[in-house]
């Protein structure tokens, strides 16, 4: 079964169709989508080690798309109404599942991951992790609302998030390179990918002389 690993992106809003034109062609194998304000690059992996494959894709995203990074593995949260719609049952049936009043003898329904308010009146709404809910529906109800797809288990999920955090920490570290006092001619103004690194011009000041538009400054290179 194919493992679905949604990677939540930072620095890209895929609700805007124009944003899709900035996706590097080498990343076309990923599935790009927006779910409200959450932009995702989804890895569909048949690999023996899907966590490693996803971590590798996250590194490639950071390398090929300056300004965009993978924040974490997205854990999709769903309401009772979403569960009912996805499972193709009445909302009341899903509510009874979630309340433990129906089909709870074999295996208890997953606990909510989050509870949010529903405006005034003190009402609240429970949100559940879809990958846990779909597992319960498959086991207990015997139907498959997410056919052909598997998700990472809790341990894999945590491990991949740790990997992504380590990636981000490494990418953010600047490594100064001593280039001496020789003038360097460059047209770098904003961050730019150069080879395996990102080049950014800092601390710029105008060069002497009224006829030049050049700048003197420090060139900083971050290796990914």
């Amino acid at each position, binding site marked *: 079964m194919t493992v679905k690993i949604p990677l939540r992106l930072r620095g890209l809003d895929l609700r805007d169709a124009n944003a899709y*034109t900035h996706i590097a062609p080498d990343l076309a194998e990923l599935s790009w989508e927006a779910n409200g304000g959450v932009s995702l690059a*989804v890895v569909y992996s048949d690999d023996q080690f899907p966590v490693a494959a996803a971590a590798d894709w996250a590194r490639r995203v950071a390398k090929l798309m300056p300004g965009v990074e993978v924040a974490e593995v997205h854990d999709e949260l769903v309401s009772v109404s979403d569960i009912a719609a996805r499972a193709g049952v009445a909302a009341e049936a899903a509510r009874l599942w979630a309340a433990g009043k129906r089909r709870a003898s074999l295996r208890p329904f997953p606990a909510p991951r989050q509870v949010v308010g529903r405006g005034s009146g003190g009402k609240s709404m429970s949100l559940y992790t879809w990958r846990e809910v779909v597992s319960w529906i498959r086991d207990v109800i015997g139907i498959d609302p997410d056919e052909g797809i598997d998700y990472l288990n809790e341990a894999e999920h945590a491990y991949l998030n740790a990997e992504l955090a380590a990636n981000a920490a490494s990418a953010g570290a600047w490594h100064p390179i001593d280039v001496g006092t020789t003038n360097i001619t460059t047209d770098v103004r904003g961050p730019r990918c150069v080879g395996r690194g990102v080049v950014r011009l800092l601390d710029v000041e105008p060069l002497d002389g009224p006829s030049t538009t050049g700048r003197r400054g420090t060139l900083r290179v971050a290796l990914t």
Partner: protein
Amino acid sequence: MSAQRYGPDDTWPLHQKPYWNKALAEARQADWTLTFIDAPHNFGVVSCPAGEHTFGVDKTAVGGETKSKEAIKKIRWCQHGSGQSGSKVRARQLETVRQGLIIAEAKQDAQEDLDRLELQLRTAASNVEEVLLAEQEAALQAAIDVDQAPDPETLSAELDDATATVKRSESVAKALKVGRPTLAKPLLDRANEAHERIAALQDRVATLRERICPDVG
């Protein structure tokens, strides 16, 4: 970006992969829109009516079939599509009813076409019957006329009488030829012509007799 935007009422461009066309058709039916980018690796972007859910459609990237199946789930799970005022189950039920209505309407149209054709056929049959009746009447009249016609024997007898008359005229002309040759010549010529015409008529009478009674003679 020089992208073309297609709404649910437009005809969307076709993808070269059939599995993507299936997903695109479902999106269009659920009132989603397509931003057709048509770049070398990028077919376009599909957005739900609220613009909150979007997904990219690549051209030939690896895993396209899985992505298209997942896109269909995304469309079905989105609460902004057609039937957004209720659950997606109800939306699907409404869609089923809509499809049923389309089929029923098509059947009704077909039935009306059938009725119209049947009426046309009945009219045509009636016309043909009228024509046949007229023809039968004409044939009957012709048969009556034929019945009133003389039979070959009568005709043959009349021709024999005619031959005898011509022969008598011929003998008179021959007798006249001695004393009044200029007066006799036209009479003899007319007698010869009469003989030729009688011979021709006798041939026709013989033919008619064979047609009426083929076994005779």
